[in-house]
């Protein structure tokens, strides 16, 4: 168990957008770096395009914090290059993602009371 894992999930909140999106993508299953980048870009309609430096900088930090881990499993070598590194969510990472979701939900609730829940025209 790393030093960071001993921290409570709320200690890491709020998450940077890049980190939350990476957690979100890994929630669906293992991914390698470039796949993560493409998926995030697609999900945000190109609003969040992670360059390699920021992407792997975030990954390094998340590994350090125990949010994700490298996966030893490789898909069929015909389908992919085995030199790629794959990442998956850790149980701690899942808890942190859930905590962030709860935090955002509370925030949205609060905002709806204040400003109403209608979309801008």
């Amino acid at each position, binding site marked *: 168990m790393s030093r960071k894992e001993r921290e409570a999930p709320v200690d890491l909140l709020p998450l940077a957008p890049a980190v939350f999106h990476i957690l979100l993508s890994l929630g669906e299953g293992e991914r390698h770096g470039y796949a993560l*980048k493409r998926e995030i870009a697609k999900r945000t309609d190109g609003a969040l395009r992670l*360059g*390699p430096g*920021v992407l792997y900088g975030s990954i*390094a930090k998340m590994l350090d914090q125990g949010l994700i881990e490298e996966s030893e499993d490789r898909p069929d070598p015909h389908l992919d290059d085995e030199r790629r590194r794959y990442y998956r969510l850790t149980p701690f990472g899942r808890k942190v993602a859930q905590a962030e979701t709860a935090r955002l939900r509370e925030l949205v609730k609060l905002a709806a009371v204040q400003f109403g829940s209608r979309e801008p025209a």
Partner: protein
Amino acid sequence: MRLSVRLYRLLLKCYPATFRERYEVALERQFKDEYADVTGRRELGGLWIRTLVDFARSMPSQVAHEIGQDSRHALRTWRRSPLQALSILAVLAIAVGANTGVYSILDALLLRSLPFAEPHRLASLDLASVPLNDVRTFDEWRQQSPYLADGAVYMSLEGNLDTGQQSGRGRLTETSRTFFPMLGVRPIIGRGFEADDETAGRAPVAIIGHGFWLQQFGGDTRALGSSVRINGVPLTIIGVAPPGFDYPLKTQIWSPTVWDFVRIPKTEVTFRTVIGRLRPELSWGQAREAFEVEMQSRQSPGRPAMGAPPRLTPLRESLAGPLRQASFVLMAGTVLLLFLACANIANVLLARTLSRATELKIRHALGASRARLIQQVLTETVLMAAIAGTIGLLVAWWSTRLAALVQPPSLTSQAYEVLDWRVLGFSAALTLITGVIFGVGPAVYAVRGCFAVSSRTATPSTGQGRASGLLVAAQMTITIVLLTGSLALGRTFVGLLQVNPGFDVRPLVSLHVSFAGAGYEGGRAREYYLEAIQRMRQVPGVVAASATQFLPLASGAHMASRFTIDSTGPETLATFVPIAPEYFRTLGTRVLAGREFTPSDLSSGESIVIINEELARVFGHPASAVGRRLVDARSARTIVGVVQGMRDSGPTYAPEPQAFVPSRSPASLIFVARVNGTTGAARDYLAPIRAAVAAVDPKVPVFDVKTMGERLDETLARPKVYATSVIFFGGLALLMAIVGLHGVVAHAVARRTREMAIRLALGTTPSRLRSRMLGRALGWVLLGAIPGSIVTLVSGGYLRNLIRGADASLVATCAVVSAGTLALAALASWWGTHRVRQLEIMSILRLETGD
């Protein structure tokens, strides 16, 4: 494709080692993937912009992250041996701080901008080179000059200043009207000097300094048109100089009266100074050539040139004066000290790194690369240097304060500052370079140590021993240079303290008065000073009192004339000193032949003179001079006495030929009183003697009240600071060298334990082993000592820039220092090998063979 990928690979090199090791491949892979999606040039441009933005966002945070990690690791390492870390920090802080301090002085004197337009084109000219008869000849000369676009003359003096509300002393500079325009300086309010202002007999006008304007007039523009009195003469204020302009010598008031010598009465000897601005189309070299041609054409063929040939000097250089050379010598000393500190710390860290070989090997085994290990060691050393550099700023600040006390800058704009961007930049660069210099050695060996065939039975490479040895040799070279310099300066300084100046120092008290503007002309001044001397004598404890116009250690300028005896033989230049009766008895100067002046000599009007032995010797035996006639261009005087020579400018200067005449109508005087040494220190008499003189006439200002001891201390302050600082450097150097040598030898013993155990097992005695190690260490010491001695002897003449005559005993000092250092080095090395005696052969060998 290839070019873009290659460029991206280069970019990746900027990421810190750990991140690069983990993600270099992935990053490159992603770049290639994105590159594969690119279809046109436009998109390629977009990719590169995105990549560069991504780089700029991610690289700094990764670097900060890893530096943070390495720094925390370094701090943990230091905590394990705090004494070593603290001593390294102290040595570095002193070395970096001393360098920064001396640099800030050089910066103030030579690099910082002066408050003039294009200051680099301003020149200072020797008086002999310029016709200074009157304004017309000077104007013709400057207008026709082949090398100057313009020129100006000034003469600076201290005078009695009276603003109506306040009176005191102030600095006036009399200038030609060209002074301000030539320097490119315009008054911030009012007008500058015009041709009319220069005309003799017109009511004098003045431009006042900005600080003076704020102080005396509260920055009120109504100051224009009002007047200040200097030496009793009213000057109408017509302008205010811009802030920061106080050239020359922190002047407060400028008046265009340099051609009208009598307009403002003077009480001291003053000199005119000529400055000029080079023609814009000429370089300094061309201007100097033109200047020399002019000098040759002016030299009269009959009269040989006196002294050094006239020179055209950059104004900045002449403003910096002797401090410039001294600062360069000190800078050389501090740089050597810094190198020494680097060599020493490198050696200590090298030894420590090698003793940490196991830790580094483990880290390497866990996947740390060469680059990672180098980064870690360098982070540690640069961090250490950065902390030391920060503390060093305090050392630098303190050293500039000291320098300002000893040698205050001549202009406010040249104040020595540490908090100046250039000085701080220098300090930061020095710190970084220092950290890298002493870190590179240990870093390289850390890596080599790990990547060498790792086996605990492997003998350490001879390369490591050689590196340590060379560092020891380099330290010895520097130590001998610094130590010899410091001992030579120390000896010279102690010698200065023992020099007999030709007068007593301890029982004397002296003070200045100035009659300027107080209505004392002709014989009235004599009445005043005889009365003052009488009152001084009545102060209890005063045993003798007298007065002079030029007191030793107190006067910057002198009058001089060329003399012959009985109008025959060669002319001799001698200074000319008007004195009161009983002068020599008061000073404690021996009368070698004849007598000294009495009160009746003042009233008799007889032309008599007393000469000192230096002047008498020119004409034969001192006693034979009495009764003969001393003749110069204007007068002939009968010699009534010969006195012992006095060192007028301080112990570093030999006595010069002097002639003393009775002071009959002085414009200013220095009173001197001899007190009874048994009833108290001379300092206790300052107040009563001042009061006694001031009581004669309160209108005559009394100032510069000091004991002779204080004047001597002031004269010796500069040599004292130089000697002390260089001795401090020398001592520190020796200490570092000895500690470093001991460490290296002890470390060598530790490294070669196994080899020595085998040798002992084969029958060698511990003493023989120790002798071998000692011999090897001394070999390195000698290797460094020889070039050290050569450098010292070759460069020793530069010490003269710190204290006159300091290089006289260099050869002997160098020999003593070399022998002493060698002996200390031998002791340190022998002590470093003491562990050899405690080696337990069997346990070592058993451990090594793994039994």
